[in-house]
């Protein structure tokens, strides 16, 4: 069965959405201000004849015209971090401030963790939680390469992370990753409603615990890289008795509103404030982000 067919009703320009799935995604990277100034990094890329284009919506994000960006000297020395374009969105929505206490509940491989740390100028504390021992290794090595000094790693099951309070929490949840098809073809072939419903149980558990751990008035950002409403709006809807949604809008990056009707069922109108990013609209991967304020 075609796993995208069920999104025909909710995705604008559905044929454009289908067509772009087979087009590979360009490489991209984030300038790491913890180690280098933006102008110096751009000069260095020019000197090495690496073509780049700065994102319309984020001055630290670059599209890179190069085949193996991981081998760039700038990456090995931690001046640049190879990171997918839309993966840079959740930290901006979280908006962490220097000196705060932040929890990144599903942290590995640390792209968003290190971006959060950079936004905090290495001041304050980020708890980067990652239950899988195998996934702690890349998390640690990325943080160390990027000069991150304010991150402590823990290995709790995110649904049972013991105690807060935290000023802000990022739940970048494990998901069916349908939005990554352009990066790793075959993701869609493994996707199904049943798989989404299985993941939903975990996602609801993670979001529920995050809301428990946030301080009153604290920010919880929930994100996935999938289109499945079962893993997105239907998860966020379960949190609306404890938190309210804030509208997401990033100048230069077009979002579509969260959906409020699915499978014939009407959901909470405020779910429109979530953001859906589709690959054919900004020439990116696919992504979902919600910003919740705890009551």
């Amino acid at each position: 069965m075609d796993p995208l067919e069920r999104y025909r009703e909710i995705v604008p320009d559905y044929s454009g959405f289908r067509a772009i799935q087979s087009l590979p995604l360009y490489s991209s990277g984030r300038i790491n201000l913890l180690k280098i100034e933006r102008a110096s990094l751009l000069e260095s890329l020019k000197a090495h004849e690496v073509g780049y284009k700065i994102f319309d919506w984020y001055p630290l994000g670059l599209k890179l015209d190069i085949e193996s960006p991981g081998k760039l000297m700038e990456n090995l020395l931690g001046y640049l971090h190879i990171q997918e374009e839309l993966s840079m969105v959740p930290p901006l929505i979280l908006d962490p401030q220097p000196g705060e206490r932040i929890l990144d509940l599903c942290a590995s491989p640390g792209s968003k963790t290190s971006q959060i740390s950079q936004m905090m100028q290495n001041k304050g504390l980020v708890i980067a939680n990652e239950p899988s021992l195998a996934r702690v290794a890349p998390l640690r090595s990325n943080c160390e390469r990027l000069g991150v000094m304010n991150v402590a790693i823990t290995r709790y099951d995110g649904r049972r992370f013991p105690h807060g309070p935290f000023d802000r929490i990022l739940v970048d949840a494990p998901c069916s990753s349908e939005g990554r098809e352009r990066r790793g073809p075959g993701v869609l072939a493994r996707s199904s409603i049943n798989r989404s419903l299985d993941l939903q149980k975990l996602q609801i558990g993670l979001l529920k615990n995050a809301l428990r751990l946030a301080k009153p008035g604290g920010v919880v950002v929930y994100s996935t890289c999938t289109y499945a409403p079962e893993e997105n709006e239907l998860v966020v809807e379960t949190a609306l008795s404890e938190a309210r949604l804030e509208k997401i809008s990033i100048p230069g990056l077009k979002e579509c509103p969260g959906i409020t009707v699915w499978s014939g069922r009407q959901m909470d109108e405020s779910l429109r404030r979530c953001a859906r990013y589709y690959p054919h609209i900004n020439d990116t991967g696919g992504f979902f982000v919600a910003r919740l304020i705890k009551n």
Partner: protein
Amino acid sequence: MSPGSSRIRNVFEPMEREEVAKLWNERFSIPVEVFSGFLFFRKARSVWAISESDLPRLSYESLGMRIMSLKDRPWKPTTSALQIFGKHAARNLIHLDEHEATLFLQGESIPLTMKIQSGLESGYVVVFYRGEVLGCGLYSHGKLISQIPKSRRMADTGERVDIDDIGCL
């Protein structure tokens, strides 16, 4: 292994900032003030540094950055830590030219000219190129031996070796 030693191996024990700063000052003449604003911990034979904050009571896998190994004598700074603190070094540092820097980043050993060696003491040194710290080198018998972790070497074949990286500084 006795239960006592296993406890010591697996717990982060606070260390005095002065104790750490003194070692870096002795070897590299890095001003001790460079280390203010960080907390230091020892676990097994490694020293870790994290930005100062109130650390909640949790079971930690890591605290900030692993900055040095006390496993052997002399103690060894990590490349990651030198990239942060090493720029303040005034002693036991070396500036490479473009060709040497490339070899260094590929993990090679580099024979050094007499001019470059003046003032260097045997042991770990901070390696610079164009004013930026590349990482940790071992200077011994007229040679500079790159200590860049495998996963961060330029000749990297593209295979991920992150897990190996944990074991070697």
